[in-house]
Protein backbone atom coordinates (compact mmCIF):
# COMPACT_ATOMS: atom_id res chain seq x y z
CA UNK A 1 0.00 0.00 0.00
CA UNK A 2 1.43 3.36 -1.00
CA UNK A 3 1.77 6.34 1.30
CA UNK A 4 -0.94 8.12 -0.68
CA UNK A 5 -3.40 5.27 -0.19
CA UNK A 6 -2.67 5.16 3.52
CA UNK A 7 -3.36 8.85 3.80
CA UNK A 8 -6.64 8.49 1.88
CA UNK A 9 -7.67 5.62 4.13
CA UNK A 10 -6.90 7.67 7.18
CA UNK A 11 -8.93 10.58 5.86
CA UNK A 12 -11.82 8.28 5.00
CA UNK A 13 -11.73 6.80 8.49
CA UNK A 14 -11.70 10.27 10.00
CA UNK A 15 -14.63 11.39 7.85
CA UNK A 16 -16.57 8.22 8.71
CA UNK A 17 -16.02 8.89 12.40
CA UNK A 18 -17.24 12.48 11.94
CA UNK A 19 -20.27 11.33 9.95
CA UNK A 20 -21.07 8.74 12.61
CA UNK A 21 -20.76 11.34 15.35
CA UNK A 22 -22.94 13.77 13.38
CA UNK A 23 -25.55 11.06 12.80
CA UNK A 24 -25.63 10.09 16.47
CA UNK A 25 -25.93 13.74 17.51
CA UNK A 26 -28.66 14.35 14.92
CA UNK A 27 -30.63 11.29 15.99
CA UNK A 28 -30.20 12.17 19.67
CA UNK A 29 -31.39 15.74 19.07
CA UNK A 30 -34.33 14.52 17.01
CA UNK A 31 -35.16 12.05 19.80
CA UNK A 32 -35.32 14.92 22.30
CA UNK A 33 -37.55 16.85 19.92
CA UNK A 34 -39.77 13.78 19.47
CA UNK A 35 -40.24 13.37 23.24
CA UNK A 36 -40.86 17.09 23.82
CA UNK A 37 -43.31 17.27 20.91
CA UNK A 38 -45.51 14.72 22.70
CA UNK A 39 -45.72 17.07 25.67
CA UNK A 40 -46.38 20.04 23.43
CA UNK A 41 -49.09 18.24 21.43
CA UNK A 42 -51.94 20.08 23.25
CA UNK A 43 -50.39 23.42 22.25
CA UNK A 44 -50.09 22.27 18.63
CA UNK A 45 -53.81 21.48 18.61
CA UNK A 46 -54.65 25.02 19.69
CA UNK A 47 -51.97 27.05 17.91
CA UNK A 48 -52.03 26.63 14.16
CA UNK A 49 -48.55 26.44 12.65
CA UNK A 50 -46.83 25.77 15.97
CA UNK A 51 -45.79 22.25 14.93
CA UNK A 52 -44.50 23.56 11.61
CA UNK A 53 -42.56 26.33 13.36
CA UNK A 54 -40.84 23.85 15.67
CA UNK A 55 -40.15 21.44 12.81
CA UNK A 56 -38.44 24.14 10.72
CA UNK A 57 -36.32 25.07 13.73
CA UNK A 58 -35.33 21.45 14.42
CA UNK A 59 -34.56 20.84 10.73
CA UNK A 60 -32.28 23.87 10.36
CA UNK A 61 -30.65 23.25 13.75
CA UNK A 62 -29.89 19.60 12.92
CA UNK A 63 -28.59 20.64 9.48
CA UNK A 64 -26.21 23.17 11.04
CA UNK A 65 -25.20 20.65 13.68
CA UNK A 66 -24.38 17.95 11.08
CA UNK A 67 -22.48 20.39 8.87
CA UNK A 68 -20.63 21.61 11.97
CA UNK A 69 -19.68 18.06 12.93
CA UNK A 70 -18.56 17.14 9.44
CA UNK A 71 -16.29 20.17 9.35
CA UNK A 72 -14.85 19.43 12.81
CA UNK A 73 -11.16 20.15 13.10
CA UNK A 74 -11.37 23.14 10.75
CA UNK A 75 -12.13 26.81 11.32
CA UNK A 76 -15.41 26.30 9.38
CA UNK A 77 -16.66 24.16 12.27
CA UNK A 78 -16.52 27.19 14.57
CA UNK A 79 -18.26 29.38 12.01
CA UNK A 80 -21.13 26.90 11.85
CA UNK A 81 -21.16 26.69 15.62
CA UNK A 82 -21.50 30.48 15.83
CA UNK A 83 -24.11 30.49 13.06
CA UNK A 84 -26.08 27.90 15.02
CA UNK A 85 -26.08 30.11 18.12
CA UNK A 86 -27.13 33.19 16.13
CA UNK A 87 -29.81 31.18 14.33
CA UNK A 88 -31.30 30.13 17.69
CA UNK A 89 -31.42 33.76 18.87
CA UNK A 90 -32.91 35.17 15.67
CA UNK A 91 -35.36 32.33 15.18
CA UNK A 92 -36.67 32.70 18.74
CA UNK A 93 -37.09 36.46 18.32
CA UNK A 94 -39.06 36.07 15.08
CA UNK A 95 -41.01 32.95 16.05
CA UNK A 96 -42.02 34.33 19.43
CA UNK A 97 -42.88 37.72 17.96
CA UNK A 98 -40.58 39.52 20.39
CA UNK A 99 -41.86 37.51 23.33
CA UNK A 100 -45.57 38.33 23.10
CA UNK A 101 -47.44 35.47 21.45
CA UNK A 102 -51.07 36.12 20.62
CA UNK A 103 -53.60 33.66 19.23
CA UNK A 104 -57.35 33.71 18.73
CA UNK A 105 -59.33 30.56 19.43
CA UNK A 106 -63.01 30.97 18.56
CA UNK A 107 -63.97 34.20 20.33
CA UNK A 108 -61.15 34.10 22.86
CA UNK A 109 -57.93 36.09 22.47
CA UNK A 110 -55.04 34.37 24.18
CA UNK A 111 -51.82 36.24 24.93
CA UNK A 112 -48.75 34.50 26.33
CA UNK A 113 -45.92 36.69 27.57
CA UNK A 114 -42.68 34.79 26.94
CA UNK A 115 -40.36 37.79 27.20
CA UNK A 116 -38.58 36.45 30.26
CA UNK A 117 -38.03 33.10 28.55
CA UNK A 118 -36.84 34.91 25.42
CA UNK A 119 -34.35 37.05 27.36
CA UNK A 120 -32.88 33.99 29.11
CA UNK A 121 -32.76 32.07 25.81
CA UNK A 122 -31.08 35.02 24.08
CA UNK A 123 -28.49 35.27 26.84
CA UNK A 124 -27.78 31.56 26.55
CA UNK A 125 -27.57 31.95 22.77
CA UNK A 126 -25.12 34.82 23.14
CA UNK A 127 -23.10 32.73 25.56
CA UNK A 128 -23.05 29.95 22.95
CA UNK A 129 -21.95 32.46 20.32
CA UNK A 130 -19.19 33.76 22.62
CA UNK A 131 -18.08 30.18 23.16
CA UNK A 132 -17.82 29.65 19.39
CA UNK A 133 -15.74 32.83 19.02
CA UNK A 134 -13.45 31.70 21.84
CA UNK A 135 -13.16 28.25 20.25
CA UNK A 136 -12.27 29.84 16.91
CA UNK A 137 -9.62 32.03 18.54
CA UNK A 138 -8.27 29.03 20.43
CA UNK A 139 -8.23 26.96 17.25
CA UNK A 140 -6.28 29.63 15.34
CA UNK A 141 -3.97 30.07 18.31
CA UNK A 142 -3.21 26.36 18.49
CA UNK A 143 -2.69 26.21 14.73
CA UNK A 144 -0.26 29.14 14.88
CA UNK A 145 1.73 27.35 17.60
CA UNK A 146 2.21 24.36 15.29
CA UNK A 147 3.63 26.42 12.45
CA UNK A 148 7.41 26.12 12.39
CA UNK A 149 9.35 28.90 10.83
Amino acid at each position, binding site marked *: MTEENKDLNKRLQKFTRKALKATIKGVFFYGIYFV*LSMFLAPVSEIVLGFQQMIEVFVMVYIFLMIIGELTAGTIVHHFFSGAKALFVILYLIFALNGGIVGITVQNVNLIVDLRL*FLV*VAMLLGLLGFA*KSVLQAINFLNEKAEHVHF
Partner: protein
Amino acid sequence: MKIPIRMISITTTFFWIFLIVFLVSAVYSFRDVRFGFEEPQIGLTSDNKILFSLPITIDNKGYYNIGSFNVTTEILDHEGFMITRASTFIPVIEKSRQVMATHNVTIDANDLQNSQDYLFNDTELEVRETVSIKLAEVIPVQASTNLSMPWGAPLYNFTLGEIEYAGFNGTHMTATVLISFENHASFDLTGNIQIQMYNGTDIQVSEGQTTIETPQNTPYYGRMELNVPIVGATESGYFEVYFSFPSFTLEEPLVIPYD
Protein backbone atom coordinates in the same frame (compact mmCIF):
# COMPACT_ATOMS: atom_id res chain seq x y z
CA MET B 1 -8.40 28.64 27.16
CA LYS B 2 -9.84 25.15 26.90
CA ILE B 3 -11.08 25.08 30.49
CA PRO B 4 -13.14 28.31 30.26
CA ILE B 5 -14.60 27.11 26.96
CA ARG B 6 -15.54 23.79 28.55
CA MET B 7 -17.06 25.61 31.52
CA ILE B 8 -19.15 27.80 29.19
CA SER B 9 -20.23 24.66 27.33
CA ILE B 10 -21.33 22.87 30.47
CA THR B 11 -23.09 25.92 31.86
CA THR B 12 -25.03 26.74 28.69
CA THR B 13 -26.02 23.08 28.19
CA PHE B 14 -27.25 22.86 31.78
CA PHE B 15 -29.27 26.08 31.53
CA TRP B 16 -30.70 25.15 28.11
CA ILE B 17 -31.92 21.82 29.48
CA PHE B 18 -33.33 23.53 32.57
CA LEU B 19 -35.05 26.22 30.51
CA ILE B 20 -36.62 23.83 28.00
CA VAL B 21 -37.71 21.28 30.61
CA PHE B 22 -39.20 24.04 32.77
CA LEU B 23 -41.07 25.67 29.89
CA VAL B 24 -42.41 22.42 28.47
CA SER B 25 -43.45 21.08 31.88
CA ALA B 26 -45.13 24.40 32.80
CA VAL B 27 -47.16 24.35 29.57
CA TYR B 28 -47.89 20.64 29.89
CA SER B 29 -48.95 20.94 33.52
CA PHE B 30 -51.49 23.62 32.55
CA ARG B 31 -53.55 20.76 31.05
CA ASP B 32 -54.25 19.60 34.56
CA VAL B 33 -55.64 22.92 35.74
CA ARG B 34 -59.42 23.01 35.73
CA PHE B 35 -61.38 26.26 35.69
CA GLY B 36 -65.06 26.07 36.57
CA PHE B 37 -67.33 29.03 35.94
CA GLU B 38 -70.75 28.28 37.39
CA GLU B 39 -74.10 29.82 36.56
CA PRO B 40 -74.03 33.55 37.42
CA GLN B 41 -76.49 34.71 40.06
CA ILE B 42 -78.20 38.06 39.84
CA GLY B 43 -79.69 40.01 42.71
CA LEU B 44 -79.58 43.29 44.61
CA THR B 45 -76.96 44.41 47.10
CA SER B 46 -77.83 45.92 50.48
CA ASP B 47 -77.37 49.39 48.94
CA ASN B 48 -79.74 48.40 46.12
CA LYS B 49 -77.25 47.99 43.32
CA ILE B 50 -77.68 45.21 40.79
CA LEU B 51 -75.27 42.41 41.64
CA PHE B 52 -73.91 39.71 39.32
CA SER B 53 -72.12 36.95 41.19
CA LEU B 54 -70.03 34.46 39.28
CA PRO B 55 -68.76 31.52 41.36
CA ILE B 56 -65.34 30.38 40.13
CA THR B 57 -63.57 27.14 41.01
CA ILE B 58 -59.90 26.57 40.17
CA ASP B 59 -58.54 23.07 40.65
CA ASN B 60 -54.76 23.14 40.25
CA LYS B 61 -53.58 19.58 39.64
CA GLY B 62 -50.50 20.76 37.72
CA TYR B 63 -46.86 20.53 38.80
CA TYR B 64 -46.50 24.21 39.67
CA ASN B 65 -48.28 26.92 41.60
CA ILE B 66 -50.37 29.38 39.65
CA GLY B 67 -49.75 33.01 40.44
CA SER B 68 -51.70 36.24 40.04
CA PHE B 69 -55.04 34.82 39.01
CA ASN B 70 -57.14 37.80 38.00
CA VAL B 71 -60.62 38.05 36.52
CA THR B 72 -61.75 41.43 35.25
CA THR B 73 -65.20 42.21 33.94
CA GLU B 74 -66.14 45.38 32.12
CA ILE B 75 -69.74 46.04 31.19
CA LEU B 76 -70.42 48.58 28.47
CA ASP B 77 -73.61 49.88 26.93
CA HIS B 78 -74.30 49.70 23.21
CA GLU B 79 -72.58 53.08 22.73
CA GLY B 80 -69.37 51.81 24.31
CA PHE B 81 -69.81 53.74 27.55
CA MET B 82 -68.41 51.79 30.50
CA ILE B 83 -71.12 51.08 33.04
CA THR B 84 -69.05 49.13 35.52
CA ARG B 85 -65.72 47.39 36.05
CA ALA B 86 -64.85 44.74 38.61
CA SER B 87 -61.84 42.55 39.36
CA THR B 88 -61.20 39.48 41.46
CA PHE B 89 -57.61 38.65 42.34
CA ILE B 90 -56.12 35.52 43.89
CA PRO B 91 -52.36 35.91 44.56
CA VAL B 92 -51.36 32.22 44.53
CA ILE B 93 -53.12 28.94 43.80
CA GLU B 94 -50.86 26.27 45.18
CA LYS B 95 -50.40 22.97 43.36
CA SER B 96 -52.77 20.15 44.33
CA ARG B 97 -55.17 22.71 45.78
CA GLN B 98 -58.68 23.76 44.88
CA VAL B 99 -59.66 27.39 45.29
CA MET B 100 -63.16 28.80 45.14
CA ALA B 101 -63.93 32.47 44.69
CA THR B 102 -66.86 34.63 43.76
CA HIS B 103 -66.46 37.30 41.16
CA ASN B 104 -68.91 40.10 41.97
CA VAL B 105 -69.94 42.79 39.52
CA THR B 106 -72.29 45.54 40.62
CA ILE B 107 -74.24 47.94 38.46
CA ASP B 108 -75.72 51.13 39.83
CA ALA B 109 -78.82 51.62 37.67
CA ASN B 110 -78.63 55.36 38.34
CA ASP B 111 -75.27 55.43 36.51
CA LEU B 112 -76.78 54.17 33.29
CA GLN B 113 -76.74 56.76 30.56
CA ASN B 114 -80.13 57.19 28.92
CA SER B 115 -81.68 55.41 31.91
CA GLN B 116 -85.12 55.46 30.31
CA ASP B 117 -83.90 53.12 27.56
CA TYR B 118 -82.78 50.57 30.10
CA LEU B 119 -85.92 50.87 32.22
CA PHE B 120 -88.45 50.50 29.43
CA ASN B 121 -86.66 48.60 26.65
CA ASP B 122 -84.88 45.27 26.59
CA THR B 123 -81.40 45.62 25.16
CA GLU B 124 -77.98 44.01 25.02
CA LEU B 125 -74.96 44.97 27.08
CA GLU B 126 -71.38 44.28 26.02
CA VAL B 127 -69.30 42.31 28.50
CA ARG B 128 -65.49 42.29 28.24
CA GLU B 129 -64.12 39.41 30.25
CA THR B 130 -60.39 39.06 30.92
CA VAL B 131 -58.74 36.22 32.80
CA SER B 132 -55.02 36.38 33.48
CA ILE B 133 -52.69 34.01 35.32
CA LYS B 134 -49.00 33.37 35.73
CA LEU B 135 -48.06 29.81 34.82
CA ALA B 136 -45.63 28.48 37.40
CA GLU B 137 -45.78 32.01 38.84
CA VAL B 138 -43.48 33.12 35.99
CA ILE B 139 -45.17 32.98 32.57
CA PRO B 140 -48.03 35.48 32.21
CA VAL B 141 -50.99 34.23 30.17
CA GLN B 142 -54.06 36.29 29.43
CA ALA B 143 -57.33 35.28 27.82
CA SER B 144 -59.98 37.81 26.92
CA THR B 145 -63.31 37.67 25.20
CA ASN B 146 -66.27 39.87 24.38
CA LEU B 147 -69.77 38.67 25.14
CA SER B 148 -73.17 40.22 24.84
CA MET B 149 -75.47 40.04 27.83
CA PRO B 150 -79.22 40.51 27.53
CA TRP B 151 -80.64 43.30 29.67
CA GLY B 152 -84.27 42.88 30.69
CA ALA B 153 -86.11 46.14 31.29
CA PRO B 154 -87.83 46.28 34.68
CA LEU B 155 -90.68 48.42 33.30
CA TYR B 156 -90.98 46.84 29.88
CA ASN B 157 -94.01 47.99 27.88
CA PHE B 158 -95.19 50.39 30.59
CA THR B 159 -98.63 51.63 29.58
CA LEU B 160 -101.53 53.52 31.12
CA GLY B 161 -104.90 52.29 29.90
CA GLU B 162 -108.03 54.20 28.97
CA ILE B 163 -109.38 56.46 31.71
CA GLU B 164 -112.67 55.31 33.19
CA TYR B 165 -114.65 58.07 34.85
CA ALA B 166 -117.13 57.26 37.62
CA GLY B 167 -118.47 58.46 40.97
CA PHE B 168 -119.67 61.98 40.32
CA ASN B 169 -120.33 63.88 43.53
CA GLY B 170 -121.19 67.28 42.12
CA THR B 171 -117.65 68.78 42.14
CA HIS B 172 -115.34 65.78 41.61
CA MET B 173 -115.29 62.49 39.79
CA THR B 174 -113.09 59.44 40.09
CA ALA B 175 -110.81 58.65 37.17
CA THR B 176 -109.47 55.10 37.16
CA VAL B 177 -106.28 54.43 35.21
CA LEU B 178 -105.02 50.97 34.40
CA ILE B 179 -101.26 50.49 34.86
CA SER B 180 -99.50 47.62 33.20
CA PHE B 181 -95.92 46.58 32.49
CA GLU B 182 -93.71 43.49 32.53
CA ASN B 183 -90.73 43.16 34.80
CA HIS B 184 -88.17 41.60 32.46
CA ALA B 185 -85.34 42.33 34.89
CA SER B 186 -83.57 39.60 36.76
CA PHE B 187 -84.46 41.17 40.10
CA ASP B 188 -87.71 41.86 41.94
CA LEU B 189 -89.10 45.34 41.58
CA THR B 190 -90.48 47.13 44.63
CA GLY B 191 -91.18 50.85 44.78
CA ASN B 192 -93.51 53.72 44.18
CA ILE B 193 -95.21 55.07 41.09
CA GLN B 194 -96.60 58.58 41.28
CA ILE B 195 -98.95 59.86 38.58
CA GLN B 196 -99.80 63.51 38.03
CA MET B 197 -102.70 64.27 35.71
CA TYR B 198 -102.66 67.45 33.62
CA ASN B 199 -105.54 68.80 31.55
CA GLY B 200 -105.35 70.27 28.04
CA THR B 201 -104.22 73.66 29.39
CA ASP B 202 -101.23 72.19 31.32
CA ILE B 203 -102.90 72.61 34.68
CA GLN B 204 -102.45 69.78 37.15
CA VAL B 205 -105.86 68.44 38.03
CA SER B 206 -105.02 65.42 40.14
CA GLU B 207 -102.30 63.12 41.42
CA GLY B 208 -102.03 59.71 42.95
CA GLN B 209 -99.43 57.27 44.17
CA THR B 210 -99.22 53.54 44.40
CA THR B 211 -96.73 51.01 45.71
CA ILE B 212 -95.87 48.09 43.52
CA GLU B 213 -94.20 44.76 44.13
CA THR B 214 -93.41 42.77 41.04
CA PRO B 215 -91.25 39.66 41.10
CA GLN B 216 -88.75 39.16 38.29
CA ASN B 217 -90.06 38.04 34.92
CA THR B 218 -93.70 38.64 35.78
CA PRO B 219 -96.25 41.11 34.41
CA TYR B 220 -97.93 43.74 36.56
CA TYR B 221 -101.53 44.86 36.23
CA GLY B 222 -102.91 47.49 38.61
CA ARG B 223 -105.21 50.43 38.73
CA MET B 224 -104.96 53.87 40.25
CA GLU B 225 -107.90 56.04 41.22
CA LEU B 226 -107.56 59.79 40.79
CA ASN B 227 -109.91 62.37 42.22
CA VAL B 228 -110.47 64.85 39.38
CA PRO B 229 -112.44 68.14 39.73
CA ILE B 230 -115.17 68.37 37.10
CA VAL B 231 -114.35 72.01 36.37
CA GLY B 232 -110.72 71.36 35.47
CA ALA B 233 -111.24 68.15 33.50
CA THR B 234 -110.71 68.26 29.75
CA GLU B 235 -111.07 65.54 27.15
CA SER B 236 -107.39 65.44 26.43
CA GLY B 237 -104.25 66.10 28.42
CA TYR B 238 -101.31 64.14 29.70
CA PHE B 239 -99.99 62.17 32.64
CA GLU B 240 -96.59 62.65 34.19
CA VAL B 241 -95.40 59.41 35.74
CA TYR B 242 -92.65 59.46 38.39
CA PHE B 243 -90.85 56.27 39.37
CA SER B 244 -89.04 55.78 42.64
CA PHE B 245 -87.42 52.42 43.32
CA PRO B 246 -84.63 51.57 45.75
CA SER B 247 -82.41 50.45 42.87
CA PHE B 248 -83.07 53.52 40.71
CA THR B 249 -84.94 56.78 40.58
CA LEU B 250 -86.00 58.37 37.32
CA GLU B 251 -85.56 62.11 37.70
CA GLU B 252 -87.37 63.07 34.51
CA PRO B 253 -91.03 61.99 34.49
CA LEU B 254 -92.47 59.81 31.78
CA VAL B 255 -95.07 61.82 29.87
CA ILE B 256 -98.04 59.88 28.49
CA PRO B 257 -100.81 61.78 26.70
CA TYR B 258 -104.51 60.83 27.00
CA ASP B 259 -107.59 61.77 25.07
